[in-house]
C-alpha cells in the first residue's frame, strides 16, 4: 500500500458533529417521502463504505466483491422476516453475525492471496453470486429469480414530539440510529489497538509480525468486520426497499461500492459519507442523459480520481483545511 495514506484521523470537531446530527434529525420533516427514502439509502451505503474502508484502506486488502456481503446481509434479513416472521430490527444483528462469520471464513483462504490475486478472487465471488441466489435448489429460501417481497415496517408511534411520523420517516430514524452506532464502532476500532495493528500490517507486514502482531488473525478479522458492516448495510437496505432479488446484487454493485470508496476517500471515515452521497445522487442526475451515462461517469471518475486525487474528496477537504488554517510557528 502507498505510504501517502494518513495513519490516523485528526480529532473530530465535536460541534460540527452535534450540529450535523441535529440537522439529520430535522431533515425528514422538510423533504418528501421519496427523498427521505433516498437519504436513508445514503446512510446504508455509508455503513457499507465504512466496512470497505476498514478492509481496503486500513488493512490494505483489496476486495472487488463486497456486493456479495451486501447480498448476504440483505437475504439474511429478508429470509428471517419472510419465513420466520421475525421483527425487522432483530434481523439486523443476526445479519451482522452471519456476515461476520462468512467474511471471516472467506478471509482465511484470502490470507494466502495478495493484491491482484485477492482482487481476482473477490471479483469472482461477485460475478458468480447472482447465479447462486437464483439456484433452484435454494429457491425455497431465496425465492429464485423473483426474489423476496417483504412488508415495509410501520412506525410504532403516530407522532414524535408532536411531529407526524410515517413509515419512511420512522425507517429513516431507525437507519440513522444504526448508522451512528456503526460509525462509532468503526471509529473506535480504527483508532484503537486493532486499527493500529491493521495499519502496521498494511505498511510493514514483516515488522508488524516481528512486533508480535498476529498477522493472519488480524487480516481475517478485518475481512470479517468489514463484511459485518456491509452485511448490516445490506439488511437495512432490504428493509428500506422491502424487496430483494438476485439481479440487484451483480458485480456492478461491488464496483459501485468501489467507486464510492475511491471518490469519498480511501482510509477516511467521513469519506464514507461523501462517497455514499456520490453513489446515491450522481447516477440519478446522469440517468437523464442516457441509461449508460452513470456508468460512463463512474468509470471516468475512478480513473480521474486515481490520477489526480487518490485520497478522494476527504483528502481534498483535508488539504483545503490545512491551507486555510494558519501555519504553526
Amino acid at each position, binding site marked *: 500500500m*502507498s505510504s501517502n495514506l494518513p495513519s490516523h484521523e485528526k480529532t473530530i470537531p465535536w460541534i460540527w458533529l452535534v450540529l450535523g446530527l441535529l440537522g439529520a434529525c430535522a431533515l425528514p420533516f422538510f423533504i418528501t417521502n421519496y427523498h427521505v427514502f433516498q437519504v436513508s439509502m445514503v446512510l446504508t451505503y455509508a455503513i457499507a463504505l465504512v466496512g470497505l474502508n476498514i478492509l481496503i484502506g486500513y488493512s490494505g486488502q483489496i476486495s472487488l466483491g463486497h456486493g456479495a456481503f451486501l447480498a448476504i446481509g440483505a437475504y439474511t434479513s429478508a429470509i428471517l422476516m419472510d419465513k420466520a416472521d421475525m421483527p425487522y430490527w432483530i434481523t439486523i444483528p443476526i445479519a451482522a453475525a452471519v456476515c461476520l462469520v462468512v467474511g471471516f471464513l472467506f478471509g482465511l483462504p484470502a490470507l*494466502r492471496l495478495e493484491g*491482484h490475486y485477492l482482487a481476482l478472487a473477490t471479483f469472482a465471488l461477485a460475478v458468480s453470486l447472482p447465479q447462486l441466489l437464483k439456484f433452484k435448489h435454494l429457491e425455497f429460501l431465496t425465492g429464485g429469480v423473483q426474489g423476496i417481497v417483504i412488508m415495509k415496517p410501520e412506525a410504532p408511534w403516530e407522532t414524535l414530539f408532536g411531529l407526524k411520523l410515517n413509515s419512511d420517516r420512522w425507517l429513516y430514524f431507525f437507519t440513522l440510529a444504526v448508522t451512528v452506532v456503526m460509525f462509532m464502532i468503526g471509529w473506535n476500532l480504527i483508532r484503537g489497538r486493532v486499527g493500529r495493528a491493521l495499519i502496521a500490517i498494511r505498511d510493514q507486514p514483516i515488522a508488524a509480525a516481528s512486533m508480535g502482531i498476529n498477522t493472519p488473525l488480524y487480516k481475517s478479522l478485518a475481512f470479517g468486520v468489514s463484511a459485518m458492516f456491509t452485511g448490516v448495510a445490506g439488511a437495512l437496505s432490504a428493509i428500506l426497499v422491502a424487496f430483494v432479488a438476485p439481479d440487484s446484487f451483480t458485480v456492478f454493485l461491488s*464496483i459501485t461500492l468501489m467507486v464510492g470508496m475511491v471518490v469519498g476517500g480511501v482510509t477516511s471515515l467521513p469519506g464514507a459519507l461523501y462517497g455514499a452521497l456520490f453513489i446515491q445522487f450522481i447516477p440519478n442526475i446522469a440517468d437523464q442523459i442516457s*441509461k449508460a451515462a452513470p*456508468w460512463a461517469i463512474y468509470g471516468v471518475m475512478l480513473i480521474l480520481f*486515481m490520477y489526480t486525487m*487518490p485520497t478522494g474528496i476527504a483528502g481534498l477537504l483535508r488539504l483545503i483545511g490545512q491551507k486555510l488554517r494558519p501555519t504553526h510557528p
Partner: protein
Amino acid sequence: METFIHQVVAGIATGGVYASLALALVMIYQSTHHINFAQGEIAMFATYMAWTLINAGVSYWLAFTCTILLAFALGVLIQRIIIRPVENAPVLNIVVVFIGLLVILNSIAGWVFTYTIKAFPSPFPKEPPFGLHFISSHELGSIGVTLVLLLMLYGFFKFTPLGLAMRAAAQNPDSSRLVGIRVGWMLALGWGLAAAIGSVAGMMIAPVVFLEPNMMSGILLYAFAAALVGGIDSPGGAVLGGFIVGILENILGAYVIGTELKLSVALVLIIVVLTIKPAGLFGKVIVSRV
C-alpha cells in the same frame, strides 16, 4: 456415449476461447505483473466493431482482419494513454484504473449499441462437417482458429527479432533498455497483441453466447480460472488451462451440477487453485526474500 463425446468436443471448442483470453491475460501479466480486469470488455468492444463492419456489408473475413487490427490499435492506445501514468502506482490504484476501464468500455458499448441482444454470424457452414454429428462446424472452426492463432504467436515470439525483444523487455526491463530496446513501446505492443487475441476470442464466442455488453463477464471469469490453472506466468499453461477448464465446465454442467451453477465452478476453481497451488500447473513458484 455420443453425448459424452459431444460434451467433450464442445468443451474443447469453448476451451479454445478461454485459452485465447487466458493467453491475453498472461501476456499482460508477464510483462507488467498486472491482472487486466478489462480484458473481457476490450474483447467485447472489438466484437461490436466486427458486428458493425459486417452489418455495413463487409465480408466476414475482411471484417475479422480489420477488427484484429483495430483491437490492436485500441490496446496500444489504452496502454499509452491510460495505463502508463499508473504503471508504478500501488496495487489498489492499478486495480481501480482497470475497473474504471472495464466500466467505461461496458457503458460506451451499451450507449452506442444499446443493451439489446444481437446475433453474431458464424463464418462456418451450418451443417456438421464431414457428416459427423458430435461436432458442429462452428466448434471445429473455432478450435482451428484458436490453434492457428497459437501457432502464429509461438512463431512470433520464438523466431522474430521483435518477439525476442518483447520477451527480453518482459524478463529484464533494465538490461533490455541498456541494449537499446524501447521497453515502453514493447509493453504497448504487448497490450496491442493481447487486445488482438482477445478480439479473436470475442468473435469466436459471440455466435454461441450472443452479442451484448455484458457477454464477457462470465467468459472472463473462466479465462481467469484457466490462466490460474495453467499458471499465470506460463503462456503454454494458460492454453492448456483453457482447454481443461472448458472441458470441465461442460462435463460438470451436463452431468453433475447443471447449467445454473456454471459460474460458481469458476469461482471454486479459482479459490482452490489459489489456495492449494498458487503457481498453477506450469507456473514458476515464487519465493520471496524476507
